[in-house]
């Protein structure tokens, strides 16, 4: 199964990010990874959570505009050049990265990178072919 990411629209307003996170806290949803893309007017909060369906439900119930999308999660050696080597594979395969964010696994050996490529299946295929560890949704949700 693909790794699901939840994204929500945030107005650039004081306290709004907290409100979103508070909704998740109240529903006992733990966040595995997050990133915020911001412009002067609004932000997009992207989240990886263990139970995306439930997260989507509680956020929508609190009037947040939520969207679910497929992303790729890869394990990258936590050392200089680790991420660059992954990106080189995608560049060589002519695959565009829309956005990405990274977090470090608790054991600290590997960095987990969440990637959104213009085509998820092509991205996955290229990475797998080059021997990169592509994580399953279960692996990511239970990290």
């Amino acid at each position, binding site marked *: 199964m693909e790794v699901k990411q939840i994204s929500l*629209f945030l107005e650039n307003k004081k306290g*709004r990010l907290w409100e979103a996170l508070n909704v998740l806290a109240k529903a006992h949803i733990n966040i595995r990874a997050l990133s915020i893309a911001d412009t002067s*007017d*609004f932000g*997009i909060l992207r989240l990886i959570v263990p139970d995306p369906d439930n997260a989507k439900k509680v956020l929508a119930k609190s*009037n947040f*505009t939520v*969207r679910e999308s497929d992303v790729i999660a890869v394990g990258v050696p936590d050392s200089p050049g680790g991420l660059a080597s992954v990106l080189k594979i995608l560049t060589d395969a002519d695959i565009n990265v*829309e*956005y990405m964010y990274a977090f470090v696994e608790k054991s600290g050996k590997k960095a987990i990178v969440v990637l959104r490529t213009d085509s998820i299946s092509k991205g996955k295929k290229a990475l797998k072919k080059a021997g990169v560890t592509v994580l399953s949704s279960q692996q990511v949700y239970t990290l």
Partner: protein
Amino acid sequence: MIWNKEAECMRIGEREKLQIERLRAILRRAYKNVPYYQKRFGESKVKPADIRSLKDIKKLPFTTKTDLREGYPFGLFAVPRKEIVEVHTSSGTTGKPTVSGYTRKDIEIWGEVVARALTMCGATKDDIIQNGYGYGLFTGGLGVHYGAQRIGATVVPVSAGQTKRHLDIMQDFGSTILTCTPSYALYLTEAVAEAGINRKKLKLKAGCFGAEMWTDRMRDEIEKRFRLLALNIYGLTEIIGPGVAQECDQKNGLHIFEDHFYPEVVSPETLEPLPDGEKGELVLTTLTRDGMPMIRFRTRDITTLRREPCKCGRTLVRMDRVTGRTDDMLKIRGVLIFPSQIEKALLEVREVEPHYQIIVTRPQHLDEIEVQVETSKKLFSDEVRHLEEARKKIEKHIENSIGLRVKVTLVEPKTLPRSEGKAKRVIDKRQL
């Protein structure tokens, strides 16, 4: 200086006589030639013959912008179309603008009243008038143009915008009188300073500014920076264009050219006429217009009429500068816009929710419109690029519809205020 002493300084009793004669004539003409007036007069059970004194005017029904829209385009013309030599419209945008048709004689009257207005600003045939009002369907550019030509001044039809050109012409031609919207005048003062132009080398002596609401504070600023006399002009497309009224150098209200336009101020609630000195909605009746007589047109502009004698010697009634409107129409940089025009444009963009809010500000000197739009599920994407594209698409669409650039801000769904009745769509933050 007074352009037409006979008309502008006429004894009041004499003018009233002239007004009632002209009013009766125009009512007869309107009733005979315009089915719309026949119908409306019939509904009010009034005939032109019932109007014997100026006071009787209150028996006549009002004409509104809606009536004009219903008659779009030529329904209110009182002469055969071939006698109409020029048409203008209010904000030439989507929906139905209001059309104003002029006969050759109407154009002459227009030139006459604007000549009076420009003369109040000190214009003579020796002057170079730099005209910064927009030429085209908007009445500002051509109205001033006709007036300037009537005087015999040299008119430079620069039109609106083109700041660099304005600055060059101002310097090279030695323009003495500037005509444009007051906010653009202020903008020009800044451009002059930024370009490092020595103000002493400019020959500007007066400015004739209007087409939008402005304040005495703005006047002070323009006068100080440009070192000229800044005077207020008033007019509207439906009546004739600029030149319905003009401020004299006493700066004590705008003289209405009463021999051509009969003013009343009515209570916006009861629609009953108010005595002089009381604030209400200005209602105008054209007394001489052939092509399109306007009977008791509700301008929606709020003002007060004053008849105390003016030191300039004119006996014409004065109106206070317009400080507000009785409808939700917006005057943005001289262009009239109904919020509904923005709404219509918005709703044509499929992904958009029908909830929006218009915020008008004047951060520097120019009006700016921000349209807050609620993001819909359809519109939302996890990619900034897509959202930005959607935002720009909405901006472009509104701009194409109303002819003005707006800034669109995406807000979260269900965050804009809702109300049971009429939603408050417009927040006007301009300090006027």
